[in-house]
């Protein structure tokens, strides 16, 4: 276990954390601000990836594909809001879970009908196709570094948007007391629609950024959705800052756990047992962490103050 390996793994952990943040940010906004449980957030991520692949096949340019796919993801999000979600805002959480779960099933099947069941891929753009030699024979792809930078930029943008702008203020106010905001002459429905569309676009953006690294396939968002929920629960529901820090923590804990759990288990156990115990512990770590956080801070690390 060398120092370089540790450094590389930390970088890997950060990168996973950033990807998680991109997904969790939209989820926490919708959940926190609108008190709406959107299980379909994962398929919106998947939709982003598929749209990017489709736009790439259409245009042949990665950058154009990003822009088109973002717009398409926004439109899909607004469409879903209009058709399904807006009828659920005043229903209880169970109804929302059921309906959005239905959307998952529907969209997973729909992409399979449209694009087939086989995994697809989006090539890395030429500009970011290089790699940086970090270890003797291990190169770190530039695209992953770009992913980290983009994620940080989105974090800053969101922070400014939510805390420094008028629209952010309305969103925060709407979250605390929607009736009062509506009484002051603000169209709360339109505000929610805006938040929802933005959240869907963020999920789509995460999908687009993940497409060149991960395989684009039906159900690709389902695993990440669970991780994203872990992130927002640890971070505090509705808190962008909490989502950011929790995503980084989860990314680091998961990656470092996967890399070193077996080695650590080997110190204490015979090799065969360590091979069994190490990976098992590694895959449990983040859930243990979540249980711990919930025990000591039931409303997450950065709870949002509410009225």
């Amino acid at each position: 276990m060398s120092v370089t390996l540790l450094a590389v793994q930390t970088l890997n952990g950060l990168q996973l954390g950033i990807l998680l943040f991109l997904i969790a940010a939209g989820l926490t906004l919708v959940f926190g601000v609108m008190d709406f449980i959107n299980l379909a957030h994962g398929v919106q991520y998947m939709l982003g990836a598929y749209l990017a692949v489709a736009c790439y096949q259409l245009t042949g340019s990665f950058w154009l594909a990003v822009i088109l796919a973002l717009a398409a993801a926004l439109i899909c999000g607004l469409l879903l809001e209009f058709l399904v979600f807006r009828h659920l805002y005043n229903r209880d959480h169970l109804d929302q879970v059921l309906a959005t779960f239905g959307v998952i099933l529907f969209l997973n099947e729909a992409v399979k009908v449209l694009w087939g069941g086989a995994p697809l891929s989006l090539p890395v753009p030429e500009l970011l196709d290089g790699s940086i030699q970090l270890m003797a024979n291990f190169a770190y792809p530039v695209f992953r570094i770009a992913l980290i930078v983009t994620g940080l930029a989105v974090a800053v943008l969101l922070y400014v948007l939510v805390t420094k702008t008028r629209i952010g203020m309305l969103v925060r106010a709407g979250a605390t007391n929607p009736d009062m905001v509506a009484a002051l002459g603000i169209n709360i429905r339109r505000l929610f629609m805006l938040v929802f569309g933005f959240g869907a676009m963020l999920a789509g953006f995460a999908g687009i950024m993940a497409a060149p690294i991960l395989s684009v396939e039906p159900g690709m968002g389902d695993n990440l959705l669970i991780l994203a929920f872990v992130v927002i629960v640890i971070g505090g529901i509705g808190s962008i800052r909490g989502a950011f820090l929790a995503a980084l923590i989860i990314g680091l804990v998961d990656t470092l756990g996967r890399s070193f759990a077996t080695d650590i288990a080997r110190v204490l156990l015979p090799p065969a047992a360590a091979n069994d115990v190490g990976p098992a512990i590694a895959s449990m770590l983040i859930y243990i962490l979540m249980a711990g956080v919930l025990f000591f801070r039931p409303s997450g690390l950065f709870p949002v103050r509410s009225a």
Partner: protein
Amino acid sequence: MKRILSALTLGAGLGAAVLTGTAAPAAAESLKVGFLATLSGPPAVLGQHMRDGFLLAVKQANGRLGGIETEVIVVDDELKPDGAITKVQGLLERDKVDIMAGVVFSNVMMAVYKPIIQSETIFIGANAGPSPIAGRGCSPYFFSTSYQNDQNHEVMGRYASQKGYDKVVVMAPNYQAGKDAVAGFKRHYSGTVAQEIYTKLGQLDFSAELARIADEQPDALFTFMPGGMGVNLVKQYSQAGLKDVIPFLSTFTVDETTLPATKDMAVGLYSGAEWASDIDNEANARFVRAFEAEYGYPPSLYAAQGYDAARLIDGAVSMAGGVQDKKSLLSALAAAPFESVRGDFRFNNNQFPIQDFYLVEAVKRAEGKYVTQLVEKVFDDVGDAYSGSCHMK
């Protein structure tokens, strides 16, 4: 979920004939095949290949396997073993199928195997080959046109030894099939396994594992990463610049089901298989050509196994002269009276194939499609490790 794909080309005509009472007695016999495959969820593409291969052979026989009107009932098991049992019982009891075929995944196979063979229905496995049914649990009613699960992994172990790779890292998902893959690899591998990495099933990002592999600097990597996991791994392996540094030996990771997604990034990566698109025999050339013309994508080993399953039924039914006499049909099946697309093919005592295994490599063909092609033969006419414990009753 049930879709009936009627392969009856003369069905309407036959019905009319029965109505008018002029049907010849020989035409009254028909063959019903229940085909169980995973056709939904992420691994649906494997089932799709297998089904398409099977149906292609039925089509080539003009909808008449062994000269008998054939109806294929395709059922999706959704990769749910308990649901699959119910569906199989429906096929056996309601539809009264003569032959069952298919099954992609071993957990589904383990669930449906008992009910099918206990009903004394002939069962042609076209992919999953878990060790219990190749060994002690073997049955005269079960035939496989694929392999025992360990065998492709054994190919890579043997190849790594032949190549003189002294130090390898093995990586597989942390579940039974992953553990079996590693055990299979080790069976014929004489060097040292420096690290055994077990990843979470369904893991998407392998950057942490790849850094560990690069740090270890082994002579080769052996991995079993089916489906989307494999696509992710191959992409990331190539992006990390490891492809040209550490040979990538894999099983069920690089094939025609994943190549459309990995494309150039997989070119040059190795896999162990009993079939490749360029195995040189007439049956295979015809199969590959017809498959691509029919479905527009190159077949994989799953498609080849499905195709062979239908061709086996075709050959055996015409040899036995029908499906009424089960005993003679069983002995006809055991004789494997068909030209396999993989060339040498005969049944072992456990009714799994004795066949050749190859090292195959992903290549890009001239017209731009990605396929696997032969590099070298690793095992010649080999059976599996469990046949010794099979005692047919």
